């Protein structure tokens, strides 16, 4: 139970650090940190598909952007709504889309799945570009964050620090739930299906159903991230549903590493800091990112998190990780 204690200490430390950030950081850095938290959820949800279920989706931005649009449209067309209602509307949109598209893709895996997710994403992108009267076309939609109504009090989150706290609590808690999810029955089922789907079927698991539920769930998580994205930038455009947005989350996830839960979060940090500092130095930072990506596919398929784990093992010897298999093999060797 020592491990649990460690996790508890780490979590408390993180929460304390998170709470102090508005005091420590400048407005600009707090702005970037909020963005990092939002994209962390997006990347974690993407990795539940890619790393845990072994499904490569090129349409994840579809849910991100759809939810962002739904939230923005709710704010524009129903001015009385509170902030959480607009987030819930975005969430509902992404859940419905996830379920319908997931049902159509049910039978497909591997390359077919990748291709079809790309096609659906392209469809949503085309609609976002062409349906000018609703989506604002190339201009996008500008919004103002509504107040947060907690029933007993109404809090303004128009200031960055307040919105940062809201993001930290809601999005942060969702990311922690995602970690917990990987330990639950459903989380394990997803992992086992990737390893040996056929055996799972013969053990009474409806694997198509499980895939549909997972797809809808990850779509909803991406949707939550998308709503907060729209609220954070107070703007949403067809960029949010584009293939480019999926490319961004794919790069973040893969560079950080798909084999560890925290890999994608690390990837988001690296990517966004890269974007903000390297883009000042060179116009071609996206190209550099592309080369890094191809290099990693070739030589470091486990991403940065794999490198870190290897260094850690070299320095401190092999340690228990949060994965079941490590614990199993460790004790077996004793």
């Amino acid at each position, binding site marked *: 139970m020592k491990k649990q204690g460690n996790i508890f200490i780490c979590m408390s430390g993180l929460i304390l650090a998170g709470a102090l950030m508005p005091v420590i950081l400048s407005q600009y850095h707090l702005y970037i940190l909020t963005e990092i938290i939002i994209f962390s959820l997006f990347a974690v949800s993407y990795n539940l598909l890619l790393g845990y279920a*072994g499904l490569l989706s090129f349409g994840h931005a579809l849910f991100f952007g759809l939810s962002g649009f739904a939230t923005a449209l709710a704010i524009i067309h129903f001015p009385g709504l509170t902030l959480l209602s607009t987030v819930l509307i975005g969430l509902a949109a992404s859940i419905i889309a996830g379920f319908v598209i997931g049902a159509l893709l049910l*039978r*497909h895996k591997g390359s077919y799945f990748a291709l079809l997710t790309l096609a659906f994403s392209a469809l949503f992108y*085309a609609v976002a570009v062409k349906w000018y009267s609703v989506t604002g076309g190339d201009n996008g939609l500008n919004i103002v964050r509504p107040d947060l109504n907690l029933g007993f009090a109404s809090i303004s989150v128009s200031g960055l620090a307040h919105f940062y706290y809201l993001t930290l609590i809601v999005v942060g808690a969702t990311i922690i739930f995602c970690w917990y999810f990987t330990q639950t029955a459903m989380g394990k089922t997803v992992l086992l299906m990737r390893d040996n789907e056929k055996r799972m079927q013969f053990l009474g698991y409806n694997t198509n159903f499980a895939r549909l539920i997972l797809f809808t769930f990850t779509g909803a998580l991406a949707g939550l991230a998308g709503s907060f994205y729209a609220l954070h930038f107070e703007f949403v455009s067809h960029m949010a549903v584009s293939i480019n947005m999926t490319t961004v989350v794919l790069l973040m996830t893969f560079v950080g590493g798909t084999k560890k839960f925290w890999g994608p979060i690390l990837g988001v940090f690296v990517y966004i800091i890269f974007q903000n500092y390297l883009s000042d130095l060179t116009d071609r930072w996206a190209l550099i990112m*592309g080369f890094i990506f*191809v290099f990693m596919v070739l030589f470091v398929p486990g991403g940065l998190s794999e490198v870190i784990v290897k260094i850690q093992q070299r320095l401190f010897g092999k340690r228990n990780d949060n994965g079941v298999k490590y614990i199993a093999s460790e004790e077996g060797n004793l």
Partner: protein
Amino acid sequence: MEILIFFLHGLGYAGLLFLVSAGLTLIFGMMNILNFAHAAMYMLGAYLSYSIMNHFTGQLWISLLICPVALFIIGALVQRFLLRPVHKLGHVHELLMTFGLAYIITELVQWYWGNYPLAVNVDGVLNSTVHVIGLTYPVYRIFIFLCAIVVGTLMALILYKTRLGIIIRAAVNDSEMVNALGVNVPLVFTGVFAFGTALSGFAGVIAAPLLSVFPGMAHEILIDAFVVIVVGGFGSLGGAVVASLIIGLLQSFGVLLIPQLSMALAYLLMVIVLIIKPSGLFGEESL
């Protein structure tokens, strides 16, 4: 008469679509790699053609000779040094590799040629028009369709009538056995990938005068080509022919009937096919 024009337009686009999706479906059917870089290669072919035609104004045939050869070499190198090493890691890594390549090629093209559309002009008979039953119609669109017919026929002949075709198809079914018979299977795969890439380069050269060249051209055709192979059936050459015709004509008449939603029609067709026959019109049922 207007309908005939739209019909011919549809055939022209169908021809282009076939040239792109034929290479895509060949690589997919033979090697089980969904090549996301395919459309980027098509774009590269188009841009190379633009630069070549800057030197030899209007002489399309020079591009038609050089670009496919250049793309063949690039394709062979990519397969040998980038795809073959990740094959053992599984299809997700192969997909990621082709995706990363597409990303890099797109970035490189924008860096070198810029971010704006460039016009490519052809001279001679290809730049003229013909008169058919009272209509004036550009020769070039008819030329595209003829190219597609020639390429499609040649591919079918090679695959089904020659010894090379037999080896390729056998290598797909049982690569170990064919390897044991003394055929260099990895070389066959490199060749197939390089040929598919050359084909996309060829399509790029053909497309450049019609659509002009711009960084978004890869993305546009990639989605349409994907719809073609979903509708036609993964890996089916015959399916690619039929689906290219359907999508080409659908796009063309869609513009005529419901201009706002012409693009959505193709997706709608794809969704219907997915629901009724998930393996595509000509696909094997054992997905």
